[in-house]
């Protein structure tokens, strides 16, 4: 974890169009022990611009991990995931699918597109908080995330 502090906060991109879910995720992350910065994008197109630091996001920091909803306006989560994996600059990014869908077809498709994991949003607050905490514990504390040199 000390490496983490040396390297600055973990940059999380949350791609989610439901403001309620955004708030729930932020509330659950509030008590996080890991220094982090969450940026929220409400549609897939904007999310890709942000990740590529294009347009209005030229000064955006490099993202360390993406929390991605599947059903999004403009470009949906599957398209965003496919684009990330097809882009040499982004392909290393850990992508966590966080969605209401429990459909077998969505789960299979997401892993075929090389999602790092697939999580169905639990229905109650306790479950949701527990999931966000576990994701945080696993992805921000336990695993090592790839870090590219901050400027190339």
């Amino acid at each position, binding site marked *: 974890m000390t490496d983490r502090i040396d390297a600055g906060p973990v940059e999380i991109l949350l791609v989610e169009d439901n403001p309620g879910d955004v708030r729930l995720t932020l509330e659950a992350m509030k008590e996080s022990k890991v220094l982090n910065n969450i940026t929220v994008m409400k549609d897939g197109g904007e999310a890709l611009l942000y990740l590529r630091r294009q347009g209005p996001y030229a000064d955006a920091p490099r993202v360390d991990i993406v929390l991605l909803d599947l059903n999004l306006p403009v470009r949906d989560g599957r398209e965003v995931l496919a684009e990330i994996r097809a882009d040499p600059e982004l392909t290393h990014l850990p992508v966590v699918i966080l969605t209401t869908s429990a459909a077998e077809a969505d789960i299979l498709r997401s892993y075929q597109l090389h999602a790092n994991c697939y999580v169905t949003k639990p*229905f109650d607050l306790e479950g949701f908080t527990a999931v966000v905490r576990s994701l945080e514990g696993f992805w921000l504390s336990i695993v090592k995330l790839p870090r590219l040199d901050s400027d190339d």
Partner: protein
Amino acid sequence: MAVGQTESEKEIIRLKRQLSRERKARIQAEEIAEHATRELYEKNLDLNRANRDLEQFAYIASHDLQEPLRMVSSFTQLLAKRYRGRLDKDADDFIAFAVDGARRMQGMINDLLAYSRVGRPNADIVPVDANEAYHRAISNLTGTIEESAADITHDALPVVRAGNAELARLFQNLLGNAIKFRGDAPPKIHIAAVRDGAAWRFSVRDNGIGMPMDNREKIFDLFKRLGSREKYPGSGLGLAIAKRIVERSGGRIWVESEPGRGSIFFFTLPASDGGCS
């Protein structure tokens, strides 16, 4: 005209007339029958269409209702968690009612979704080992079984034609029902199956509170509940789902019961070794 006709000639004419009248009547009857058949066929098509629409409606309604409800439920729970004891007694009460209402509605919507999913694609009717389905049901009910100290026994069960996951759900709902409506003694439940022509007739016998015979049809209706909500929580869909699963496989479900003397739920499912005619 009658002059010179013999008796037998008159008889022949009379018979010919009668024959022609009968022929006309028969043609008329056939036309009526044909018309009625066509009408019945069209009514049947309409009915099938209406049923499909209703299923589609139930599916979409329950699926799409989940999303906003999840918001209501999550945020009232958050409100309860953060502000309990910090407003006043009334506020705590109101929040508790909202949380409870949202939780119950979630249960109902989940069950309605399960109900409308019976018979949807990937639930093909195939040969299913009822023993396996039974064990899956038991493992899903582990918590409830331990908590109620239920004693569940079963005979060797046959292979039948049903939806694979649906048969497990059928056992789960019937066992869950038997445990929920238990009396003062720990539940004792026995599952048996006997061959009945081309089908198997299953029975699920319990030692629960039973019910008056005039309720035995109603309990399979959607959202029908006989007990109070406080004492017997649930959506009132468990037996409706069970009925739908059985009927989709071409079987029948019914109950024999007496207040205070337990219930026996029966259902039939086609045997997998054919004989279906």
